[in-house]
């Protein structure tokens, strides 16, 4: 049993979720603060786009930007940075594909926090920064957590964009989804089956764990509270 794809997938998904979570949450917060409706809707649509496009389109666009013979790719190549056909590319693919899930979940989580809490916090003198970290984020936490699970699982299962920019290099960029596909196509269905089972198990563990955590917090907060819900 070749464990490399499992390790690569887990490494890729773990690193990419950290990046995705930070950027997704931060951008969701910024977008929520935009006053002008038209501007907000436009930016929101752009950030949601990778969600509805096929991953191969995202991969294609990434290549268009970072490909070795494209301006940016060449520029990066000058300073010795390569982001195609290596492990970093798998992370980039996972981040781009899973980002909209995180972003939309974070936005929804922020929106459902009653603005009255932020108002109360302002009247007792809390700075905007303290409000974000001590009021907004903790109250949005369940939504952020579920966004994180979604994004992590999506990153784990990423295939189309990864194949395009990271390649299918066994032991380097061959993630579990790529390994499954190559195995099926190469007639090694037993091998594919093993990866499929692992993938399902890992995803299930994460979904269960975070579901459990968020439910406990929700029960503690929500029972009998008097603040109005939208």
């Amino acid at each position: 049993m070749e464990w490399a794809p499992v390790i690569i997938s887990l490494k890729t998904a773990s690193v990419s979720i950290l990046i995705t979570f930070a950027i997704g949450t931060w951008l969701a917060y910024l977008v929520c603060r935009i006053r002008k409706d038209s501007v907000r809707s436009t930016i929101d649509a752009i950030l949601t786009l990778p969600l509805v496009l096929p991953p191969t389109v995202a991969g294609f666009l990434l290549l268009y930007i970072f490909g070795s013979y494209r301006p940016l790719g060449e520029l990066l190549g000058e300073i010795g940075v390569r982001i195609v056909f290596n492990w970093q590319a798998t992370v980039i693919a996972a981040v781009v594909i899973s980002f909209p899930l995180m972003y939309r979940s974070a936005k929804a989580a922020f929106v459902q926090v009653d603005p009255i809490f932020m108002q109360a916090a302002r009247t007792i003198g809390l700075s905007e920064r303290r409000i974000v970290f001590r009021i907004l984020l903790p109250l949005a936490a369940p939504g952020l957590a579920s966004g994180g699970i979604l994004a992590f699982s999506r990153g784990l299962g990423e295939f189309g964009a990864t194949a395009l920019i990271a390649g299918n290099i066994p032991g380097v960029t061959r993630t579990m989804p790529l390994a499954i596909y190559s195995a099926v196509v190469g007639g090694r269905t037993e091998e594919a089956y093993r990866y499929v089972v692992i993938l399902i198990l890992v995803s299930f563990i994460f979904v269960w764990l975070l579901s459990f955590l968020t439910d406990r917090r929700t029960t503690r907060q929500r029972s009998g509270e008097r603040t109005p819900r939208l």
Partner: protein
Amino acid sequence: MSISARIVKRFRGFALDVDFESESKALGILGASGSGKTLILKSIAGLVTPDEGRIAIGERVIYDSAAHVDVKPQRRGVGYFFQSYALFPHMTVQENIGIAVNPADDDDRSQSEIVSCLTERYQLAGLEHRYPANLSGGQQQRVALARIFASRPEAVLLDEPFSALDSYLRGNMQDELLRAMEDYQGQFILVTHSCDEAALICDTIITISGGKITSRGGVDKAFDVCGGCRALGKGSTRPSSEANDCFMRP
């Protein structure tokens, strides 16, 4: 000290246009729902920006459209009592009060000392580690008050603090508030649609209708407008308490 406010704001089909000044300890703004009274409060607190006007607390101008002054709510020194209390549901009583405390440089008391003093003062001893969801209505109100006072505002605005309560609780709550007001040095503005409440708690009453002030004066004047309210004079039911400022060294 006086609070002065001139506020003009277009609002839901009519325009709010008020101009008042008050030196009383407790000013009441009396009006029906939708008359714009909550909007006045929010403008003073800085949660809403008027179209035009000027608001000052004592010498400090916190809003002036002509001079482009618009102080952030955080800096206005104005506390706001929300009708639903707005206690942070993910924090304990202690944390709710504690987060509002910002020990000034000249005080030697630590944050936890201030918090325990306030907890004592508002009869919340023993409840420090409870979450708002596990408190009674009365307890929640006291926490809300304690939190406001913990931030040491110069003025406190109260938004229909008793409207949601049944009459059984209302009496107790009003006593609580009167007690708190007695201790505190600053001024209060109370918004309500209940004549009784206004009469009980306030010295001066302004009535509002359709965004405009329709009368201002003492409690007796308000009765003319309300018609048939019970005559409750100032001070007749206010309990007294020791002046125990939690923020200064004993």
